[in-house]
């Protein structure tokens, strides 16, 4: 009996050890560490940036200034309505992202489309355009001088591409506009917080927004 007891103990220890190993392996496999900011696709600024005062006109003809960026997160995308491919693609992604955020308990961010083509995009025209994508989305524009006060500050570039044989001053009716494809994220203090340089995946953007927000609120 006494000679057999250590053997029983050893067996028990071995079995317990094996179970612990299995549990450890299981925990290791299923443990998901929270995404780190630097691992995101979005570029999160190490320090959010203030934006100099700017004044645009929104889709209802009312001023849209720095004040309108405050009190909520805001996604801002620059484009133009006569843009056949990338603008509707990005606005569709933002609409899908918005839908995914609606399913969470997060307060919904604002989404603002800034037209860099004021010649063709009147506020009325912009309203019809933006509400097609989402009734909650907003749009704004201004003179090129007003727009550039904001874009230069944010590192957003755009350029009118005239029709063949036309000039930038008289570009024709169907000119195109090259423009930055990025989506900018402003925090509730109205400061530039993060940049989505490749805004093509709604689910990823929604998830990353939640991570960015969580870190900012820590």
């Amino acid at each position, binding site marked *: 009996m006494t000679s057999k007891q250590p053997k029983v103990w050893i067996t028990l220890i071995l079995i317990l050890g094996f179970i612990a190993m299995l549990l450890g392996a299981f925990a290791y496999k299923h443990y998901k560490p929270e995404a780190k900011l630097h691992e995101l696709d979005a570029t999160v600024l190490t320090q959010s940036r203030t934006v100099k005062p700017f004044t645009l006109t929104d889709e209802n003809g009312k001023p849209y200034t720095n004040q309108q960026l405050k009190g909520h997160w805001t996604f801002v995308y620059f484009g133009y*309505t*006569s*843009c*056949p*491919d*990338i603008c*509707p*693609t990005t*606005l*569709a992604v933002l*609409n*899908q992202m918005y839908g995914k955020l609606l399913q969470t308990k997060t307060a919904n961010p604002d989404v603002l489309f800034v037209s860099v083509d004021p010649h063709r995009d009147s506020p009325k*025209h912009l309203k*019809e*355009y933006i509400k*097609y*994508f989402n009734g909650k989305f907003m749009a704004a524009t201004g003179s090129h001088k007003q727009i550039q006060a904001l874009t230069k500050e944010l590192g957003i*570039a*755009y*350029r009118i*591409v005239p029709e063949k044989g036309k000039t930038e001053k008289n570009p024709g009716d*169907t000119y*195109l506009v*090259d*423009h*930055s*494809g*990025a989506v900018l994220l402003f925090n509730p203090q109205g400061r530039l917080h993060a940049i989505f*340089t490749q805004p*093509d995946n709604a689910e990823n953007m929604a998830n990353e927004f939640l991570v960015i927000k969580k870190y900012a609120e820590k």
Partner: protein
Amino acid sequence: MLKKTFTILIVVITTLFAVQTYAAKKLAHNVKISDGYIRMVPNHLRVTASYLTINNTSSHAIYLVSATSPLAKSVQLHKTEKVNGMMRMVQQQQIEIPAHDKFQFKPGAYHVMFIGMDKPIYVGEIVPVTLCFKDTSCATVNMPVKSDK
């Protein structure tokens, strides 16, 4: 004798002409166009794009050179590219679909651009789009208007 020669001549000319028109019209059996659609846009807009897939199972490359449609005055082949952080659309004179390859037109990349539509489009509406290739073959595809927002 003269009559016979004349008849033969007529037959030869007609056959040649028939072969010629056939080649000018019909797409090779091993080139398939699928999944084509026109993107729905707000009613007041006069531009849109369409996306499609061309599957070339033949043993040589084919080249898409033009598209036309009653939908718009101008229909162009374009590619959206990112250049120095800016999204730029570059008109394509031809698009190569390599042998034994599938070529996808998709949002944010290659697309068929419709400029100057003279009326609004509606979801479910069917729009014919004729695609022509370098070898002069053409195919008319009926594309539905779809919302992808």
